């Protein structure tokens, strides 16, 4: 299992304010981490203790129609992927934790007790992608109406496009 364990030594590249700051493109190779679903929560709190103060983003991706994505060896590609983006202000670095979530049981531990700010983002991931976060205090929909069935951002969910009528459509009146 390739896991880049977070250690302070890799945190050397502070972007000092000199004109020759590395170009955006080549500085973009952020740290990536691919924990397994069970060690995901423990890795997040490990990152927090090292100095990643802020959880910038939690989102979910559905890889139904794009299975062949580049993953490090040893990581079994699943249908869903929860992507957590942590930010360290002291080390001026970002890390992206990508967890594989199988389609059969789309659930993963919630990190609200480590980063309370992730509460709404996890509710949005549940609402739009259908991934249940175990241990989340208020696992309900956040964007869609309460009685909406289905999770819109899944790849097998239609766009819901209303065919544009070119003929004279009978108006409501």
């Amino acid at each position: 299992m390739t896991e880049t364990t977070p250690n302070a030594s890799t945190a050397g590249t502070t972007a000092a304010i000199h004109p020759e700051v590395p170009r955006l493109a080549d500085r973009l190779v952020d740290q990536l981490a691919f924990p397994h679903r069970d060690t995901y929560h423990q890795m997040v709190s490990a990152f927090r203790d090292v100095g990643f103060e802020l959880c910038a983003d939690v989102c979910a991706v559905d890889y139904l129609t794009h299975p062949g994505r580049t993953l490090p060896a040893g990581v079994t590609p699943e249908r869903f992927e929860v992507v957590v983006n942590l930010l360290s202000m002291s080390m001026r670095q970002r890390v992206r934790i990508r967890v594989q979530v199988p389609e059969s049981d789309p659930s993963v531990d919630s990190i609200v007790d480590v980063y309370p700010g992730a509460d709404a983002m996890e509710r949005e991931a549940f609402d739009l992608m259908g991934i249940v976060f175990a241990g989340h205090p208020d696992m309900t929909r956040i964007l869609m109406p309460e009685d909406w069935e289905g999770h819109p951002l899944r790849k097998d969910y239609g766009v819901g496009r209303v065919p544009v009528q070119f003929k004279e459509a009978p108006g409501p009146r």
Partner: protein
Amino acid sequence: MDQYLPILILGLLGLAFTVFSLFSSALLAPKKKPTAAKLAPYECGIVPGIEPPQRFPVRFYLVSMIFIIFDIEIVFLYPWAIVFHQIATFGLIEVIVFAAVVFVSFIYLISNGALTWGPPKTLQSGMPSRTSESTITRISASPPTPGEAA
């Protein structure tokens, strides 16, 4: 007798205006049986499911008390204003005494905390009078030493 005629006309005109404005909306507005939605309480577009409680904190009641005190004071000032010239200095002193007495009850209400609503301001003590420049610091672009803590 004739000096009271203008007052009578004024009274009639006032009455006529109120009656007209009351019935003009009934006359001109479209007649529609009010639907359930129109009768529902307006709460920013949402029809509230939970009934609002009947009990209200006592503070609202105290504020209405203050209003009533000053309202009655004004009512007494009207007749005083009409006869003000006849009872010149005596009238002035008398109304000042009256206002002072009413003011005492207002002071009592204030001391009882009728107007101090909400939480005590936590940061109030030791807060220098702030301008939009005083409480901010500017971090200029001097190159920080690597690993400078946030």
